[in-house]
């Protein structure tokens, strides 16, 4: 009896400890996002005093600061945060659902699909505004279905899905390259955005549709958080735990693609953020709780920090995707080595 209750107590204590640790991790990440956000607002080519930054944020006119903070830095930082949240959340949803860190949307072609559709809409059909996002979302969903369908053969094997995705991605990349090549007004700025992703020339009104997408699709995803966790244990186990597997999978795919595609339509496919956020968050959170929110916050920190580094800390100015790409590439190789050696898990 006493042995029994002491076991229960240990389990409860363990669970409490994990919950507490999870809360700490979340708040640290949140503080980190706010801190990097504040730094990017205050420190640029020139340093703006925090008081002035605050006054600009509250809508006051401050000589000298209103333009640099309000017009340049704020839209950029806001768009970075939103895109980072979307990429981080959408990426980890795929990785968790498919139980493979390589199955992130930017590797299996979903980001390229959204990117290709967005470029097509903008360059060939001369569209602009939210309709581009809709275009990108539809195309992203189409690519997701295509990759899933093509890799389906007595069930979907992870490796096959990833390879099929890489093949599809190669095709879509060459579509992007082709559209950029044949674009009537070749602009390097545009091209950079669609090749690696960039938040150059960000406007606040770009942020609004992205915010709606984040709230809507993110909400859907978070409401499925428990089922998604169950899917990590395998389809059979998840079904045994009362998860409706195919319905959950469908919802998760739609929501994650929605997030990724909306962000891609706004900033271009910022390289490897969707791929990196999940594993980084996994390292921090360990097994203490759901990866969704930590990964989203990690994505936001990544994009904000990488953009800051690309703008101010390197010789010359680099778009954010170049910095995240240079970070992500070695990690991708490392991951392949690790997956091959010990078999993969997040």
């Amino acid at each position, binding site marked *: 009896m006493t042995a029994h209750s002491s076991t229960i107590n240990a389990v409860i204590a363990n669970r409490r400890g994990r919950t507490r640790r999870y809360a700490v991790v979340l708040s640290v990440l949140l503080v980190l996002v706010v801190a990097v956000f504040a730094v990017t607002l205050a420190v640029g080519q020139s340093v703006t005093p925090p008081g002035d930054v605050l006054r600009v944020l509250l809508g006051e006119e401050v000589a000298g600061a209103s333009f640099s903070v309000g017009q340049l830095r704020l839209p950029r930082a806001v768009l970075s945060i939103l895109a980072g949240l979307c990429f981080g959340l959408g990426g980890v949803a795929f990785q968790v659902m498919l139980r493979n860190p390589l199955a992130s949307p930017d590797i299996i072609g979903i980001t390229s699909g959204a990117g290709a559709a967005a470029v097509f809409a903008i360059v060939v059909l001369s569209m602009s505004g939210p309709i581009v996002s809709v275009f990108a979302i539809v195309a992203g969903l189409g690519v997701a279905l295509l990759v899933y369908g093509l890799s389906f053969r007595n069930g979907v094997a992870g490796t096959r899905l990833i390879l099929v995705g890489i093949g599809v991605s190669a*095709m879509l990349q*060459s579509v992007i390259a082709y559209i950029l090549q044949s674009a009537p007004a070749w602009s390097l700025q545009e091209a950079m955005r669609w090749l690696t992703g960039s938040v150059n020339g960000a406007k606040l009104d770009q942020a609004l549709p992205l915010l709606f997408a984040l709230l809507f699709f993110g909400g859907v995803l978070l409401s499925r958080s428990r089922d998604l966790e169950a899917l990590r244990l395998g389809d059979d186990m998840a079904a045994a735990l009362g998860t409706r597997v195919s319905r959950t999978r469908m919802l998760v795919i739609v929501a994650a693609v929605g997030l990724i595609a909306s962000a891609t339509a706004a900033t271009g496919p910022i390289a490897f953020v969707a791929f990196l956020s999940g594993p980084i968050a996994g390292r921090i959170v360990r097994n203490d709780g759901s990866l969704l929110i930590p990964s989203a916050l990690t994505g936001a920190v990544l994009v904000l920090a990488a953009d800051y580094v690309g703008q101010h800390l390197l010789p010359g100015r*680099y778009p954010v995707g170049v910095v995240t*790409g240079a970070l992500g590439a070695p990690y991708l190789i490392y991951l392949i080595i690790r997956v091959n050696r010990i*078999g993969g898990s997040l």
Partner: protein
Amino acid sequence: MTAATLKTSRGRWSAASGSNRTRGLWLAGLVVLPLVFVFLSVTIGTRNVGWADIAAGIGGAQDNIGRAAVALRIPRTFLALLAGGALGLAGAIMQGVTRNPLADPGILGVNMGASLAVVVGVAWFGMSSAYAYIWTAIAGAGGAAIFVYTIGSLGRGGATPLKLALAGAATSVAFASLVIAIVLPRGDIAGGIQSWQIGGVGGATYQRILPVLPFLAVGFAISLLSARKLNSLALGDDLAAGLGENVAVARAVASLGAILLCGATTAICGPIGFLGLVVPHVCRLLIGVDHRWLLPFSALGGACLLLAADVLGRIVARPAEIDVGIITALIGAPFFIWIVRNQRVRDL
């Protein structure tokens, strides 16, 4: 698993592969076909040129735009023949050496490795001479090949086709991203990102082609001479060793040939993917798995396909051109997916 898939696919292929007579017919066809494509490549372009000007242009006259355009098409055609032949042959060698139906210089990251090496050399070490380009590209190709093969053979089961392809594709993605990171901020690098991300044969001149010729020649020679060794390797390592073949040396020599071909090609054209995947498979369907036939066929077939892709790229988007690397990806990627689907897969 490799042996099993090879055996089943062999069964299917050997049924289609005919006698020496059918091979001879196909060979004749494959000699005529490049000639047809050469003719098309010289006569068809973004600009429509009359027959008289074409004849004059071939003769070297450049006194009006049409003739000058034709004169430009000749080295370009020559380069497409060389590059296509090299990549087709390199693909066949890689599939033979790794005994992997998914092997291709593009998919295994070899071309991107060469591209990355050149970009690093140009951007950070101020490299500019043609020979420096070529040596660097070959070193990059070799490094990438060894790297990918090592990663792909880690862990359970050794270098299975899917593991190797995954390692190669991921390495390729990673290298491509590094290439962007290095070239994007540097407006001064010749050709910009486009030409180091996507290969093309446009803008070829004899001055650019000439330095790679010796490298390609050595590469072709080594590759074609290793046909017999590849036939032994196809029996499996144990049996090949039993037949007196030094397996490791055979692999290394054949790979060296392929790496020379890929490196030299990438140094002038940029990375062209999927060509080396498609061509050997089609050739195997036509003439069977004997490498003594397969290798020359793959070279000729590669030359045909690249020329055809280049001509196609010039006519579908007039007045603009599409780089041949884009066309080969559009043709080759579905083929790649088809092969992946037909592989029996065990999860990693």
